[in-house]
């Protein structure tokens, strides 16, 4: 009986799965947007609007596939071969890492290709606490106190986590001076009970699993939870100092040139700066980079914002000092383990 036939059928099936995945690119224009964790809802909305707009303008039907995860992990997957047409990651540094690891995959001057340093939206770090703020948290000093349980993701994998870390450091440096900053940050991570790999994971831990007293969250996540998902059980506390998070977007030269999707990719990213898109951005609690549109969203509190470039000498330097192997963060974790 037909074991030969069966084997052939299976082999054909296996090859078919090949063809299935290759063929997907040929039939209509598809873009792969490799993004970071919290932007899921944003791009779900935006992709619909963009597809309509692009079809009306050029008649071409675009399908955008999304991938989400911790920013560092997502960057690594692109390095390892995930064929992203565009990357919309948490920080410019992760995009730089792609270009460094694979020469030519992303042009060196990518950041200048779109307005505002390729940041169509910005955000910052705020505190999310439980309703009634039982631990009376008002600022960074309150969360390093003993007995306060802090939830924040792991800076080694999560872009959001690195913003959290630098925001804390910036505050400590401003209030206590540079040499006390490290101890301050150490106290902060000493209070962390769960280190999730991505921002969304930390949110889950705090909101769903009910762990921790305060979540260091992206501002947009915090608003999302308070307004929609938290069931009215949470409040936002804005610290006095925080960091301007400038998530960056760009297209991946190596991929779009090969796939012939460069024009679509550029249109996709440019449209993020359009008024319609900026309003979607604001609706999802990101700060639109267009100052006129930003005025339409008064919920964004005004606070003192430091930036990576001005206050930390840029991401490369910050990464080398703090997040690289054996950097400040690794040392802090080692010290904490010793206790």
């Amino acid at each position, binding site marked *: 009986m037909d074991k030969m036939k069966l084997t052939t059928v299976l082999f054909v099936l296996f090859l078919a799965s090949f063809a299935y995945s290759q063929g997907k690119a040929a039939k209509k224009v598809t873009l792969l947007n490799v993004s970071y964790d919290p932007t899921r809802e944003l791009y779900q909305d935006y992709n619909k609007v963009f597809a309509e707009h692009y079809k009306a303008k050029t008649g071409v039907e675009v399908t955008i596939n999304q991938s989400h995860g911790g920013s560092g992990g997502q960057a690594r997957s692109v390095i*390892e071969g995930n064929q992203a047409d565009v990357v919309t990651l948490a920080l410019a540094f992760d995009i730089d890492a792609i270009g460094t690891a694979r020469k030519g995959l992303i042009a060196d001057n990518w950041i200048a290709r779109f307005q505002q340093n390729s940041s169509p939206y910005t955000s910052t770090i705020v505190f999310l606490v439980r309703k009634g703020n039982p631990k009376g948290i008002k600022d960074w000093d309150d969360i390093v106190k003993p007995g306060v349980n802090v939830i924040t993701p792991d800076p080694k994998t999560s872009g959001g986590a690195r913003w959290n870390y630098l925001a804390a450091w910036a505050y400590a440096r401003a209030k206590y001076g540079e040499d006390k900053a490290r101890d301050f940050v150490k106290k902060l991570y000493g209070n962390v009970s769960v280190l999730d790999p991505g921002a969304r994971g930390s949110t889950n831990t705090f909101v769903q699993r009910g762990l921790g007293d305060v979540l260091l969250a992206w501002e947009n996540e915090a608003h999302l939870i308070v307004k929609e998902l938290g069931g009215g059980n949470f409040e936002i506390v804005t610290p006095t100092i925080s960091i301007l998070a400038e998530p960056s977007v760009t297209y991946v030269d190596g991929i779009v040139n090969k796939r012939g999707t460069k024009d679509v990719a550029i249109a996709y990213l440019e449209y993020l700066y359009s008024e319609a898109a900026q309003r979607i951005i604001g609706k999802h609690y990101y700060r639109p980079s267009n100052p006129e549109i930003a005025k339409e969203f008064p919920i964004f509190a005004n606070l003192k914002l430091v930036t990576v470039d001005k206050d930390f000498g840029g991401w490369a330097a910050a990464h080398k000092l703090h997040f690289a192997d054996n950097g400040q963060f690794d040392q802090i974790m080692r010290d904490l383990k010793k206790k």
Partner: protein
Amino acid sequence: MVKKRVVHEPLWVKTLLFLISGAFLFVFIVLPLVTIFREAFKSGIAVYMETFSDPGVMSAIKLSLLTVLICVPINTFFGVFIAWLLTKYRFPGRKVLITIIDLPFSISPVIAGLLFIFLFGSFGWFGAWLMEYDIRIVFAVPGIVLATLFVSFPFVARELMPLMRELGKDDEEAALTLGASGFQIFWKVTLPNIKWGLLYGIILTNARALGEFGAVSVVSGFVRGVTTTMPLYIDILYGEYMFRAAFALASLMTFLALVTIIAKAVLEYYIAAQRKSMEVKIQS
């Protein structure tokens, strides 16, 4: 101490053992299963069905089923083949092969996934070659199939090896002397002798192929609607606070698992019925 010859356990011991095992099964198996269905239907049937109108969910189901459809037959075939090879023949390297079969069991699924990245990722052994010919393995469906193939391979082989060893080779040799060809021997003698072990191995392979998360999550790239299997998509749904949908999909996976078990029972019945049909009418 007076030695009592106890032939049966006293009633209280029996009851206690029964209660303990019953409680264990209830808490660790029945309760979670019931919870999955309860959470899935908490907001009503309409919300439950809505889950399956999401194209991402449907593509996840299709991808999982495709993966199972490829991996289970391939692993069954090679599992039987390798078990046969290892029990009927002696050859140099035999012991090494036995150890290799156990590899997917002993390494963490995440490491297994990383192995494929190391082989087929852009910096992997075959990376440059694959990129040149634009062949996509990792972060695409073939990578998912390969990773699943790897982690679900050992079950059939490990079920069959002790079984075949015990059965010995007499039956096969008898069939040889009666003039049977290699294929006839396998189909009419070996296969019926190993069928229950084989079936159980297939069920385990199926379960693992359907439910694998770790290895697949590493090679997937999480491209929604393209490289997300059911377990991955459940993770996505859960992360987007869509709990009803996550449990709805989980309930489907549970249901599929139950179906395989029912299929086994049906097969048992069918084989018993076949036995009956072999009866020869004796003429007086």
